[in-house]
């Protein structure tokens, strides 16, 4: 896992945070303590009613904590003026919360204006933010929210939350109301934006898959905000802390872990290749000698063109243009093993063709490579379990 955080310095520090509502004998949130590092994307995940949203809203004090403390960048903000505090914390909600009677530009400008920025700076910032979330400022700035699609509205919501350049961003089920396609696009967009702005983000969701995809770390909430486990997605999937987490992560945890491994983590297999312009007879010799009984044809720019087997070369064609099975199953190193598996199961050919950013051939990843990696993951988890059990055993022995 690449380290995406300024290690060590927590941007948010929640200590013994408790919320009791009048007339309820049990607290909604009970003595929750948690640190979120600067630049980290922390996901709160759990079933509805587990207190994750209440916890989120205590961070910007839309819900006032009954007891406990909140530190923002080393400063105790438990009792500062909430309005000033909230201008330093971006806030994105599921329903977007865009003001329908203000233009997109005016919506994005809200917090900078509250902060008293000069209007030239506000205007420049609005355009900058719209560009950041992939909306053309000239086209969208003067439109009203209802003239935009749901996905575009949610983007404006993110642009608005970032406009005041807050160090911290709170997102309450930001993609909950969008269709699966839009949701996935928005998730990718958020990761792209986050790679650019590196904010400290706390995101609430009830969708474990979303949590795995987005989170640097995941906090799995149990009953009444009990923190069942806090860890990286790989830790939560590979080593669930207790049966509750295991159940919540659900079936298919092994498959989900493949989401977390990028293709460049597994060694790509070299594969016999030939040029489209090569002599067909020489290529046939290559095919016959190859282990898999096929050769990958590349064009002049080293981009994959087709898989060629012995059958394709009998009778011997005059040249290799248009011969063989089109090689369409290409992925770049940023794709995950899950993507690779998906592509493999959906196409013919010896595996997924790994290409670089310009589409040039780099290697082939087959089912064997994926299975070998899964086996490695299993072995690692077992080693951890054994180590944990040993540690537990020695602790008990000492006691």
């Amino acid at each position, binding site marked *: 896992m690449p380290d995406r955080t300024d290690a060590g310095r927590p941007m948010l520090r929640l200590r013994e945070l408790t919320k009791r509502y009048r007339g309820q004998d049990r607290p909604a949130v009970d003595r929750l303590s948690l640190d979120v590092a600067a630049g980290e994307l922390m996901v709160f995940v759990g079933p509805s009613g587990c207190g994750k949203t209440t916890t989120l809203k205590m961070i910007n004090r839309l819900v006032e904590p009954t007891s406990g403390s909140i530190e923002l960048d080393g400063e105790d903000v438990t009792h500062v003026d909430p309005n000033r505090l909230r*201008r330093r914390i971006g806030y994105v909600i599921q329903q*977007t*919360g865009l*003001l329908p*009677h203000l233009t997109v530009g005016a919506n994005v400008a809200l*917090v900078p204006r*509250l902060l008293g920025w000069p209007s030239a700076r506000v205007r420049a910032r609005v355009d900058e933010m719209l560009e950041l979330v992939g909306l053309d400022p000239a086209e969208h700035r003067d439109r*009203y929210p*209802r003239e935009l699609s749901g996905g575009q509205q949610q983007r404006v919501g993110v642009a608005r939350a970032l406009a005041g350049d807050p160090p911290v961003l709170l997102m309450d089920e930001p993609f909950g109301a969008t269709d699966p396609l839009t949701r996935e696009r928005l998730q990718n967009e958020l990761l792209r934006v986050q790679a650019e702005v590196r904010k400290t983000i706390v995101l609430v969701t009830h969708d474990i898959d979303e949590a795995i995809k987005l989170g640097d770390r995941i906090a799995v909430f149990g009953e009444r905000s009990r923190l069942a486990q806090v860890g990286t997605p790989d830790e939560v999937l590979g080593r669930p802390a207790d049966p509750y987490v295991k159940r919540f992560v659900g079936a298919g945890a092994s498959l989900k872990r493949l989401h977390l491994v990028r293709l460049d983590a597994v060694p790509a297999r070299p594969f016999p290749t030939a040029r489209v312009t090569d002599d067909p007879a020489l290529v046939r010799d290559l095919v016959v000698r190859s282990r898999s009984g096929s050769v990958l044809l590349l064009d002049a720019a080293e981009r994959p063109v087709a898989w060629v087997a012995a059958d394709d070369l009998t009778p011997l064609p005059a040249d290799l243009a248009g011969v063989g099975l089109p090689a369409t199953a290409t992925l770049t190193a940023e794709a995950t093993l899950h993507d690779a598996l998906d592509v493999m199961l959906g196409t013919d050919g010896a595996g997924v063709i790994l290409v670089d950013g310009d589409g040039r051939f780099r290697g082939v990843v087959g089912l064997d490579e994926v299975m070998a990696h899964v086996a490695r993951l299993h072995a690692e988890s077992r080693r951890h379990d054994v180590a944990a059990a040993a540690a537990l055993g020695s602790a008990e022995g000492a006691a």
Partner: protein
Amino acid sequence: MSGGGRGRWAGLAARPLVVALLLGGLWLWLRGQELDSIERRTINADYLLRATREHLWLTVVATLAVAALALPLGVLLTRPALRRVAPGVLTVLGVGQAVPAYGVMVLLTLRFGVGFRVAAVALVAYSLLPVLRNVVTGIGQVDPALVEAGRGMGMSRAAVLWRIELPLAVPVVLTGLRTAMVIGAGVATLATFVGAGGLGDIIINGIKLGRTPVLVTGSVLCACVALALDWAGAVAERALSPRGVS
């Protein structure tokens, strides 16, 4: 705020046209009548203009007073602290509306004598509740998510009220005010009974004296005032309603 497109103002030309036709028809019809001296005492430009002016003035002042009372009251009743008592307050005020405006006028007269003020107070008492109800509804229908978004961005409660709740309540509030004003224009004819003048004078004259031209003139003018006010209200609604909302 600039006008937004042709659709925003379409359909507003009909009412002035009807008023013009009514007034033109009345004028042509009166020209064909032989008016006697009694009729002429009422049907002359000075008298008609004065009565119309009184009528308009009474209606507009009452409407403005209603707005001045209902808006702050409605805002108060939608604040978190008072939200729970709002239905009760509206019920109590509903009793006031059940009393006929004429009865209110007479009762007020017994205590305060006759005149413009009594007529205005009666009109206000009559239309306060429906307007107040619209203010409460108008603010109440603002999506709570917008209020939360505003608070979450660091807007104060006052800023949320002025920049989110009130602008978004404008269409509902103005519709209520406009309806109250138009009904008020009709009820204001009763002002004649408390000596506050208005077009009611002409109508009552027509009835008491048995002079049809006087009665018709008073009635048509009254209808025209109501139509004109309705039009002015519609224009105000179009102009003041926030853009970007249906």
